[in-house]
């Protein structure tokens, strides 16, 4: 219980730090980027929108920093994130709502897939220590971990889109379709998501394999494994119920955490494929100097990660009594 409270306190402090960072950054930066942005947008958006930005970022205002800060915290707490300039005049919360499902669908499904496949391969690799799987995996992982995400995405486009025209290079579904639950639309979404999903899978699966394999190698040296062998238990039974079961904890807590990173996990892949998710939107916001949208997205990403970490910590404490006792 005390442990949960401590983690909760950390959650609140980190959230506060992020909010404050968001508040301070535009006010501290040299060359006042906000003023520059205002000048650029002058005449292109409504005076009300400009006024809203002035209020939000403390330009031309006589209110003290403290007053601004209190109002800012109030706005964030009530979900009033301001007006987006990228999608002119729409409230930021509305814009974000349209992006979230795409990211959750693409990155969420891929994260689960990478975890399941990676863990299984890691188990097999460690079980057949020195076998062919164990021989090729580490070097392959070293290489995939060093390749830039976005470059893999580009190469996939080059191969499967430019050369063989198997999959579309950009977007989330065919322009000719309107979103609905029809077969045509759903299959189009799957087709468009295939290449980005491959790019994420290739780069993220290695971490799961390596962690699982390394923990499993350590667990396999334990006495209770020898005991299980001495009892004459079958290979698969020892592999899954004695070794993997005890070795999966780091991967499991990593998985809980990576669910939080789903929201921000594939910014560059989304960018390369112009996939209309949260990451692509964040970059759009930055390129259009849409600071209100950018701040809200950053906050969303951070909150997602914080919640996931909180859950991962609690799950680890529940699953592994040793982490509780160590405190």
């Amino acid at each position, binding site marked *: 219980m005390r442990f949960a409270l401590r983690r909760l306190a950390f959650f609140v402090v980190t959230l506060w730090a992020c909010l404050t960072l968001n508040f301070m*950054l535009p006010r501290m930066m040299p060359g006042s980027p906000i003023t520059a942005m205002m000048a650029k947008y002058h005449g292109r958006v409504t005076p009300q929108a400009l006024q809203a930005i002035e209020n939000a970022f403390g330009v031309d205002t006589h209110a003290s920093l403290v007053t601004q800060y209190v109002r800012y915290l109030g706005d964030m707490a009530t979900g009033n994130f301001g007006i987006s300039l990228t999608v002119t005049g729409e409230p930021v919360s509305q814009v974000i709502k349209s992006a979230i499902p795409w990211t959750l669908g693409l990155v969420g499904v891929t994260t689960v897939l990478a975890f399941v496949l990676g863990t299984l391969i890691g188990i097999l690799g460690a079980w057949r220590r020195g076998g062919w799987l164990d021989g090729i995996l580490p070097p392959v992982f070293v290489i995939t971990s*060093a*390749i830039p995400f976005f470059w893999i995405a*580009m190469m996939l486009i080059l191969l499967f889109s430019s050369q063989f025209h198997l999959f579309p290079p950009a977007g989330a579904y065919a322009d000719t379709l309107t979103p609905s639950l029809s077969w045509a639309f759903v299959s189009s979404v799957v087709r468009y998501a295939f290449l980005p999903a491959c790019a994420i899978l290739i780069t993220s699966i290695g971490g799961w394999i390596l962690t699982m394999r390394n923990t499993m190698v350590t667990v396999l040296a334990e006495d209770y494994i020898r005991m299980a062998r001495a009892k004459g238990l079958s290979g698969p039974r020892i592999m899954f119920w004695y070794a993997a079961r005890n070795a999966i904890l780091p991967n499991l807590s990593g998985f809980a955490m990576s*669910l939080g990173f789903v929201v921000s996990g594939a910014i560059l892949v989304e960018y390369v494929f112009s996939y209309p998710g949260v990451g692509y939107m964040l970059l759009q916001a930055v390129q259009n100097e849409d600071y209100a949208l950018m701040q809200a997205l950053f906050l969303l990403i951070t909150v997602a990660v914080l919640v996931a970490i909180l859950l991962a910590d609690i799950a680890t404490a529940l699953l592994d009594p040793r982490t509780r006792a160590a405190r």
Partner: protein
Amino acid sequence: MAATGLSTGPGQAGPGQLPGMAGPAGAAPGAWAGSAALGRLWRAVRSNRKAAVGAAILAVFCVLAAVPGLIAHDNPEADAYPRSLGPSAQHLLGTTAYGQDIFAQAVWGARETLIIALVSGVISTVLSAVMGIAAAYLGGLWDGGLNLITDILLVIPTFPLLIVLVAYLPNGGLVPLIAVLVITGYSYGARQLRAQALSMRDRDFLEAARVRGERRLYIVFVEIIPALTSLIVATFLGTAVYNVLAAAGLQFIGFGDPNSLSWGTMLYWAENNAALQTGQYLWAIVPGACIALLGAAFALLNYAFDEIGNPALRPVRKYRTRHDA
């Protein structure tokens, strides 16, 4: 080992994703352990195939970065040659849509990429060591405060934070880029070093130093830091890989100096000119392959040091037990 409840796993964004952070090596204590550890590292590089390959690739790139003019005689600047040529004897890898020689660009690009990796890697590692060891050694309020800062930076998603920070910086050059990489990248190493330094606090050799009446600074620099050499090296290599990739990513989306000569910037221009759609494949393939090679060099070294530090992970000869049959 760690006294706080933050678990790190493969899903963690940031330097934590890389291999080599798994287990700190238990170095022998004492002042002489530093040079002994370095000697061991050198022997390891020579005896471990992964380490040797990594070191060789790194050496090649260092040569390219040091004397690019000797290797690529062509001019890497724009409009020097006819545009969009294919590979030929004059232009080994062809030219870009701006008439730059791709081979020359790739060779000259090594310099900035390596500078970013090494400088930001060294600074973040030093910061990790200072924050981590100070927190562990000073204890009490210092530990609480420093640790809180590190923990907060550790959980804020790194790449989005990088993007937000860079978004507010006026078109900066290398210095802001490196500063931002250091701020966002030091925390993982600091946490690991703190945990390891904490575990050493009550060891006999430190007790002996205290009884001898050594000063605090002496203990930190001559007793503690040498004993942490392998972990510090692992931290540096992990951070270097991450920074190479992060910097390339930022430059790729246009947050770098678009006139600089680096692999990330090359990719930015290739993407902006739809190099993949217009058949200028080499323009996009070459810089990406260079980044991957450099990253792989650091990752290989890292992986090798991990094996050296944790003997359980060393490759074993294939053996058969009755259970396999």
